[in-house]
């Protein structure tokens, strides 16, 4: 039989679907960077990568610690017995010292205001794996999770691809600085009900990606009330907890539930990782922390699919228990982030570009609405194309974060050195100078027009092609009609 032609039929639906999202235009920016990466001396005209939220500001501190503590890396010198125990260790409970270290660090990132139980710490393959694992535990295929937008684009892949869960955006507007309102939550919930989608919970990142803001106490409390009333879950991805470099200080969901009464703690779950706070994405340390015993139990067994390497656990157990080091690290890291943030936003302000006031994260949410020819997503896309090809910066357009207003861009600033930041600012300055003539009147009611004019350049082609019924008010659904 003719094999080649029947080839792709041999694969599963998951393997052949577009749910990985990598065919979307959003990745054109990455491709542009890959083809022409910036280098200060070898390729000074290349594309500067500002679309990757990586923290490289405090890498030297980590390296220094590793050099000073060589035994931590592979536990040699501690004798054969200790070595054997580590290399053989594949218990899905995780090394107790590792869990203790993580619990201590998590508490530290929250200013010591709350403590974490090491027995509730479950490993996963990065925060990516932790988020997916929670979906597997909390929802069945077809169930929905509300997610305030704008949100991290990879949620579409991580939360939906293999789990079959649907994401239902909760619209946040720039008029109130993209805060999550009760009304928006209720509206999204109602829409889901009408579309016959069973809502299992709310998932959000706090501090927010891409906004870089932390949720205030009122919002957190009303969120908890909302989910508690409906007895649905709340998943807080607190991966940027220790990147809070300015006021107001970070309030974790773990603190809120201590303050409120009659909350069903079985509904509360936290996702954490060391990829952003410590700048160690390669170590694939994902943590699921749940207040629900059944979820901990189930998650722990599922962690077999994404256990942290025992070698890495051993290293981190050592590093995170070194209180002196972690104190110094958290402080220094935040100072460097604050400085970098200041430098970047100041530079942008001088050119008349505002960013959303933010106090956390490795990026800022840049307002380029005044540079759009029209307040449409098409305009945003063409502006973005210009930024990639002419200004040569890979920034991320707001539409890829499912922002309901065009003209916002996420720019990462922590994955480069000071010099490169200056180069980037210089390029933006030149660009802005050239575009000064473009005057755009921002209509107040433009967000409605947007939904209708949002073209087929959706980043999430899967949503359009998915047979599942989407929330009828989702801009993505509007786009296809």
């Amino acid at each position, binding site marked *: 039989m003719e*094999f080649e032609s029947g*080839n792709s039929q*041999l*694969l*599963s639906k*998951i*393997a052949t679907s577009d749910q*990985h999202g990598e065919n979307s235009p959003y990745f054109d920016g990455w491709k542009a960077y*890959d083809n022409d990466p910036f*280098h200060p001396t070898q390729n000074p005209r290349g594309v500067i*990568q500002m679309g990757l939220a990586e923290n490289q500001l405090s890498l030297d501190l980590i390296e220094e610690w*590793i050099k000073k503590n*060589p035994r931590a*890396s*592979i536990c*040699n010198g501690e004798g*054969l017995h200790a*070595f054997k125990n580590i*290399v*053989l*260790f*594949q*218990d899905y409970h995780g090394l107790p010292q590792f869990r203790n270290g993580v619990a201590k660090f998590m508490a530290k990132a929250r200013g010591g205001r709350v403590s974490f139980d090491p027995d509730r710490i479950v490993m996963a*393959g990065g925060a990516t*794996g932790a988020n997916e694992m929670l979906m*597997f*535990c*909390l929802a069945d*295929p077809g169930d929905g999770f509300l997610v305030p937008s704008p949100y991290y684009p990879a949620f579409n*892949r991580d939360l939906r691809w*293999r789990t079959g869960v649907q994401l239902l955006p909760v619209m946040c507007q720039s008029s109130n600085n993209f805060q999550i309102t*009760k*009304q928006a939550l*209720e509206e999204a919930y109602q829409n889901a*009900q009408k579309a016959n989608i069973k809502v299992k919970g709310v998932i959000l990142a706090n501090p927010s990606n891409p906004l870089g803001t932390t949720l205030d106490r009122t919002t957190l409390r009303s969120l908890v*009330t909302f989910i*508690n*009333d*409906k*007895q649905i879950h709340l998943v807080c991805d607190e991966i940027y907890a220790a990147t809070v470099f300015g006021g107001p200080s970070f309030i974790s969901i773990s603190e809120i539930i201590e303050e*409120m009464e*009659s909350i069903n703690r*079985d509904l509360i779950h936290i996702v954490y990782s060391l990829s952003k706070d410590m700048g*160690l*994405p*390669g*170590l*694939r340390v994902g943590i699921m922390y749940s207040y629900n015993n*059944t*979820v901990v*139990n*189930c998650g722990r*067994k599922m962690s*077999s*699919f994404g*256990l*942290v*390497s025992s*070698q890495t656990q051993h290293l981190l157990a050592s590093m995170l228990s070194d209180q002196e080091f972690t104190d110094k690290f958290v402080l220094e890291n935040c100072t460097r982030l604050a400085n970098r943030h200041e430098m970047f936003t100041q530079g942008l302000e001088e050119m008349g570009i505002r960013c959303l006031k933010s106090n956390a994260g490795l990026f800022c949410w840049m307002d380029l609405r005044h540079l759009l020819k029209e307040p449409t997503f098409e305009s945003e896309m063409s502006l973005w194309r210009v930024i990639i090809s002419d200004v040569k910066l890979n920034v991320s357009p707001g539409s890829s974060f499912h922002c309901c207003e065009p003209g916002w861009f996420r720019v990462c600033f922590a*994955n480069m050195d000071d010099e490169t930041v200056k180069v980037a600012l210089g390029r933006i300055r030149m660009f802005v100078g050239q575009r000064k003539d473009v005057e755009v009147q921002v209509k107040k009611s433009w967000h409605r027009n947007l939904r209708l004019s949002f073209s087929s350049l959706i980043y999430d082609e899967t949503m359009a092609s998915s047979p599942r019924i989407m929330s009828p008010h989702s801009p993505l659904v509007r786009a296809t009609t």
Partner: protein
Amino acid sequence: MRLIVPLQGVVQGRGGLILGSLIPCALFYFLQFYLKRHRSPPSNPPSQSPSAANLSELPRSSSRANLLARGSTGRASLSARATSIAKPNDSPYYIGLDRVREDPYDEIDNPDGIIQLGLSENRLSLDLIEDWVSQNLTDSKLGVGSQALGLSGIATYQPMDGLMEFKVAMADFMTEVMGRTVSFDPSRVVLTSGATPALEILSFCLADQGNAFLVPAPYYPGFDRDIRWRTGVELIPVHCRSCDNFTLSITALEQTFNQAKKRGHKVRGILISNPSNPVGNLLNRDTLYDLLDFARERNIHIISDEIFAGSTYGNEEFVSMSEIVDSEDADKDRVHIIYGLSKDLSIPGFRVGVIYSYNENVLAASRKLTRFSSVSSLTQQILVSMLSDKRFIQEYMKTNRQRIRTMCDLFVAGLRELGVECTKSSGGLYCWVDMSRLISPYNEKGELDLWDKLLNIGKINVTPGSACHCIEPGWFRFCFTTLNEKEIPVVMERIQKAVESCKPSV
């Protein structure tokens, strides 16, 4: 009708008082039963939070009607999957592992603890690894540089499916391990955090929920978790028998396939383990060719789990599926190999697994899925060094094989002295032991009774055949590479003790 006749009989005096009283009683009980089942569930008010008053301005939705009735603290509803997975382990395979964790044997600290013979771990050659590490991994180089910590900086984005150097090192290692008869291509290597996710990812790629894989039984108990839990793919056992030395028969494969088809299952592939677990057989060249033919005729995949490829010690030659595919040009697209460093290199903790496929589409999809299960970059850095030291690897593989052979011989001899035989195995870290004459009754219950005695009286953890879906009762998998030579007599004594307690009292 049936009720009326006896009642008539009662009325007319036939059947007597007994029926006359039995039937009304029965009816009475059925009535109670019916009422109990259909009693309306207790109504429970949803929990009120102190800030509930603030929500009064919001329109109450009809969603409240959709809420399941719950107590005031509520039982949050989880996925169907979670509820079943969270249940306590009921397979003896997992129960045994848990028991050892709680009460592990230690020669000095806990001599009455449970000896682990239920986990196929190789502790025989760790000293070699440790020596290499202390001699070669000088502290100053480790964990330094952005690549080690997984940052990309100015360089390229970190690939989730493994660093290129590591893929090259792994391909070379696999070539060495599988006897240098075939050369593995680094571009076909996809790295995952262990063979467990490698198998799951491959299953997600090759089958849809509800589809099935055929798997020769007895098989590794972990397959039930790795393949079925989250993918929803079914496993259909193809039973192998002691009369065949538990080798796979193509006839049995055909029969099982046809039966499955009749029952409406869509079979997407065959999962073989070679060397096999728990039996320790090697699949010979002819069988492998037959398998490929079988798969081709039915347009299904072959997944070959070759994780024990380097742990062979018999006189038989190990033949990898890749060797078969190499010689045939067509049909490569349906062959996929699972590998990892947990068995052959004795480093299960480091979490390194491999998907090796000849199918470009499978590779593309798998690579994307590795984002959920990637190998730690620091671990990769260490292992690149180790795997690239060809001289060390060759020495290690040779010594390791010898040690496994020695231990196997000693263990099998020890069992023979007790009057217990095993199948002749050529690979793996265990032996497949026939204790069928020692169980009573001759069925799964008898087998589990013996298992229980071995665990609780003998204080050794072994894996009963039923946990491996073996169709013949009385077979057990004993892993011997967790022991040192001194401990073998201890184990034999304990087996004796447990078996003696089984003897029916005269």
